[in-house]
């Protein structure tokens, strides 16, 4: 460790202003920041630098994603062997899934970070750690058999069009990971939806539809038991199936204070209330699905915990967070039940509310100003 530090200190002048490799300054800083705690201190004023910088925030989110990732890897294998009616052990399942999922993760990180470094070099700013999370989120919301070149194209699109054109991490309007998924969803629908893609190398023994796909074509009786959906023994995107693993991640986010409990709570509340409304309405079988089942089907839980809470694209005000989250839950269930073309409404709901988040904030702040203006008692002379 010490040798590494010494080495970095030795080559540091090369990258500083006037140094030989000045142009690669941001690359150097990114690696130094990745390896060591940055030694930046404030010189003016009475500020204290919190040890929770962006690097640590992002690392915690990645740690919170690990349960969903590990379970997802196992489930990919489990679903595969189930579909070809083979009994296997836990490790065989996991290894099969690992071989499927790991290349996707590698491609997502290499392409995404490559573009981030490129832009940082050209624009001369620091490489931000934002992509560490995005690069992990992208594989988790894709079907296991997605061709790798598609992952690369989608990641490039998400980073360039979703983020860099707006000025990089922190300036983006849309969640980059969901931008990648939406891109794939509209560009290559045959690889992103239907009942063929959710099980890796599917045998013909079972249909392969996700619970949401079944519900859409009125196969209500085919929907798995609630416990199966909660623990995640169902086909689906890699990381979204197990609500339990996602809740573990949620607990980590909430315990460290990185994810907003207001958003998570209100997303679930919005989805639950919309589900209840449909139960009361009950026009068709789909509407009669119990509201609590909606919350554990498809990507609802994953979106609520990891996507909606993205601090950049969510509402910033506390009141706004409740409105933002509630509407996400509401719209997600609405799209699911009413629009047969989009079996999964969570992605579209979050992207839509991402766009509206600044507007919500604006009105929350305006309302606050108005409320406080009323309190001022100006003597009125008649």
């Amino acid at each position: 460790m010490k040798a590494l530090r010494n080495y970095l200190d030795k080559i540091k002048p090369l990258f500083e202003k006037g140094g030989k490799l000045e142009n690669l300054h941001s690359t150097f800083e990114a690696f130094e920041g990745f390896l060591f705690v940055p030694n930046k201190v404030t010189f003016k004023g009475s500020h204290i630098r919190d040890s929770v910088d962006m690097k640590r925030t992002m690392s915690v989110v990645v740690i919170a994603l690990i349960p969903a990732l590990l379970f997802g890897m196992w489930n990919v294998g489990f679903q595969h062997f189930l579909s070809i009616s083979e009994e296997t052990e836990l490790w065989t399942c996991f290894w099969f899934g690992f071989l499927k999922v790991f290349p996707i993760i590698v491609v997502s990180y290499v392409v995404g970070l490559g573009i981030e470094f490129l832009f940082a070099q050209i624009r001369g700013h620091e490489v931000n750690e934002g992509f560490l999370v995005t690069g992990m989120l992208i594989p988790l919301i894709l079907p296991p058999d997605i061709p790798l070149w598609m992952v690369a194209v989608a990641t490039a699109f998400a980073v360039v069009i979703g983020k860099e054109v707006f000025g990089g991490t922190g300036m983006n309007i849309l969640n980059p990971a969901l931008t990648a998924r939406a891109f794939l969803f509209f560009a290559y629908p045959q690889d992103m939806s239907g009942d063929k893609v959710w099980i890796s190398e599917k045998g013909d023994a079972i249909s392969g539809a996700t619970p949401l796909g079944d519900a859409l074509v009125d196969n209500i009786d085919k929907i798995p038991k609630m416990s199966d959906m909660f623990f995640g023994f169902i086909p689906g995107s890699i990381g979204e199936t197990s609500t339990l693993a996602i809740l573990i991640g949620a607990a980590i986010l909430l315990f460290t204070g990185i994810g907003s409990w207001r958003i998570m709570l209100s997303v679930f509340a919005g989805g639950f209330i919309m589900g209840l409304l449909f139960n009361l309405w009950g026009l068709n079988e789909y509407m009669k699905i119990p509201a609590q089942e909606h919350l554990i089907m498809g990507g609802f839980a994953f979106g609520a915990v990891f996507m909606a809470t993205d601090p950049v694209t969510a509402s910033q005000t506390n009141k706004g967070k409740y409105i933002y989250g509630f509407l996400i839950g509401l719209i997600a269930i609405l799209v699911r039940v009413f629009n047969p073309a989009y079996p999964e409404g969570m992605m579209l709901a979050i992207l839509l509310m991402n766009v509206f988040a600044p507007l919500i904030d604006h009105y929350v702040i305006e309302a606050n100003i108005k409320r406080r203006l009323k309190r001022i008692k100006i003597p009125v002379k008649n």
Partner: protein
Amino acid sequence: MNSEKSDREPLFSLKNRKLITNPLSKDNPITVQVLGICSALAVTAKLEPAFVMSISVIAVLAIANVIIALLRNTIPPRIRIIVQLIVIASLVILVDQVLKAFAYDVSKQLSVFVGLIITNCIIMGRLEAFAMGNKPWPAFLDGVGNAFGYAWILIVVAFFRELLGSGTIWGYPIIENLGFYNWGYKDNGFMILPPMALIVVGIIIWIQRYRNKDLIEDK
């Protein structure tokens, strides 16, 4: 009249050439003035309709500009918009009839968008901003320049959308003939959808601003 003759300038003076070259790049109707976006999204899924649309707009805009420039001193200001619309509408009907007679298939594909040339903001904009106050020859050049500025964006957008979205160029299955499909390549369905046209236009604007820093607004 005498005074007009005395200061007559050469047909392609620097000023006149600027009328054509400016709209191609730094004063482009689509990427800088952001006009005519609607049809740029609608007709650019394939190269052929985009090309025909471009030709139509070039014809309409050039002729309308000349006609309005000829009439400019006789049009009462209060009804000038109606007069301009009548001129544009007559020309669009002509273009529509010509297309139906000689290129029926394409005119089917373009459907309402030929008629909607009337509402293309570029045409009204040039008539108002230029033809009403200039002589026929510069008005003609201005019309041709702006219409070409519109046209090349359309063609570029349509080229990429057709190539990536349908795997063809002008109907020729280039991707299939190169054998990309055998390697697992698939056409990008998103490219056919109008939002992607907006993004492609956005990328052109991005490149243009990167090359020409004058276009970037002061903060």
